[in-house]
């Protein structure tokens, strides 16, 4: 079942989303009335510090939150005209497997099966109706995620790979369903700076070449500045400010957003790039 995209409508729209989580006895308003939209092929960023609700927002949208923790979840989540909140589990599964959305996380090791070879794990995610042999498809996905010599790599176990390679395996798995939208929750936070740059470059390439929409969640404004044309700044479950990334960075309206930007630029005082990295 592949929903027809509605002309002009955003790929994903979230309206007045509220997610209340049960933490022990208390109820935490993790997401407290958030509006958000992602256009077809667009890349947006959600920044905020820990506890701001950015990850919960993503998990709620993708319906990844366990019911036991959920005290309340209200609001509209519309993906390609489909109401995700009211969608049945099989329909949702179908959307995850075919051309819907995928997600990658900060800690790939926590999401990879340690006892299975990488290739087999990619194979699991490949939707049934792919052309050509599964083996070719696995290699193609691993290569697309920027992994060298995918043939040898498919036979490796997750623990044999570096952090950057594991994240690339996660990306390959995420790509297997040919998603229209990729959620990346702190995709490079666990990686070294030089590796981070490479993985971001890969995400940039995938976004461009596949016209894949992306939602990048990060505490690091630099990551968002690298990939996202629009940005949402969150705190305490609310979106404080949103808009064009450059405009928000240049001229933040909310004092908290201004502080966050000030802090991350203050640290980067001497960030003048060595050599040229400007766009050709």
């Amino acid at each position, binding site marked *: 079942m592949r929903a027809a995209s509605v002309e002009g409508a955003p790929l994903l729209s979230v309206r007045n989303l509220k997610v209340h989580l049960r933490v022990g006895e208390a109820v935490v308003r993790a997401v407290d009335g958030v509006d958000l939209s992602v256009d077809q*092929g667009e*890349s947006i960023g959600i920044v905020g*510090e*820990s*506890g701001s609700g950015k990850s919960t927002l993503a998990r709620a949208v993708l319906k990844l939150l366990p019911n036991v923790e959920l005290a309340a979840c209200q609001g509209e989540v519309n993906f390609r005209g489909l109401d995700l909140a009211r969608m049945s589990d099989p329909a949702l599964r179908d959307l995850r497997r075919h051309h819907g959305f995928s997600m990658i996380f900060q800690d790939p090791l926590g999401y990879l099966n340690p006892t299975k070879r990488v290739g087999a794990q990619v194979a699991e995610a490949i939707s049934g109706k792919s052309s050509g042999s599964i083996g070719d498809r696995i290699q193609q996905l691993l*290569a*697309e*995620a*920027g*992994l*060298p*010599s995918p043939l040898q790599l498919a036979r*490796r176990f997750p623990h*044999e790979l570096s*952090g950057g390679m594991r994240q690339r395996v996660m990306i390959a798995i995420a790509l297997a369903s040919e998603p229209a939208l990729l959620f990346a929750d702190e995709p490079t936070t666990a990686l*070294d*700076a*030089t*590796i*981070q*740059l*490479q993985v*971001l*470059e*890969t995400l*940039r*390439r995938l*976004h*461009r070449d596949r016209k894949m929409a992306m939602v990048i969640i990060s*505490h690091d404004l*630099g*990551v968002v*500045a*690298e*990939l*996202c*044309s629009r940005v949402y700044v969150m705190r305490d479950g609310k979106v404080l400010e949103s808009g064009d*990334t*450059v405009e928000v*960075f*240049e001229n933040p309206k909310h004092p908290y957003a201004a*502080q*966050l*930007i000030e*802090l*991350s*630029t*203050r*640290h*980067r005082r*001497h*960030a003048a*790039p*060595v*050599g*040229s*990295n*400007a*766009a*050709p």
Partner: protein
Amino acid sequence: MSEPILQSRGVTRRYLSQIPSSWRRRVVNAVDGVDLDVNEGETLAIVGESGSGKSTLARLMLRLEQPSDGVVLYRGVSLTDLNRKQWRAYRRDIQAIFQDPSSSLNPRMRVEQSLAHVARRHELAEPAKLRAFLARHLASVGLDPPEQYLPRYPHQLSGGQQQRIAIARAMMLEPRVIVADEPLSSLDISIQAQVLDLMRELSRRMRVGLVLISHDLNAVQSIADRIAVMRRGRIVEIGRDIFDAPAHPYTRLLLQARLSTNPREVRTRLANLSGAPVSSQTIEPSGFQV
């Protein structure tokens, strides 16, 4: 010029490392002949990527590990040659702060118990004045009012608060050197700034030598007096202004990998987001093209 308080001379640490998909092992010099001086009251940052040996160096400086070769000297005394009992006398002077504050605090102890444990062990305060002593130290790391934090368990504190407890625990021993291994990387940026300011203030006020180990160049440059860049167990460059005038190509590479939040640069990068070819800076592994 202040005296070097902590020194390493030709410090080397070897490990046997398993080769992936094989039964064979090979020798890895995690730290490879490092000479380093930490001066009194100085903040020395050691930056490097994972696997560069910076944490192993920290562990060697803290005598949590023994060097395979070379010595670590504290005020000219070789820590390597001390026996356990002798070491105890120095333990107090060289304190540690680690990356993950939740794992450096006992989850089953309240803050008060954790800190009191240390205070009693080192006889820092009379039993009657212990609570006031702890409260004072919590207040000095910005946990105010302290009464609110003393009865809590670590899980009832945020990461930044836990790290402050760890700093308070180290500082109340009035150490001469603190070795902090990635003390910021598990913290939010606004908290990072606070913890950095706190460490800077404490190290200035108490003239504590601070060895700040980090992978984050941005975070350390505002606080460090000197910065050492580590790679593959060696210090490739050390100095005051290596950010402005990096001499080693690896330092330059690290600087290049920093993400800019400068709006002007962001604009050029984002303009590149759709359509245009990938910037010249790309360092993709070869062979990704399908």
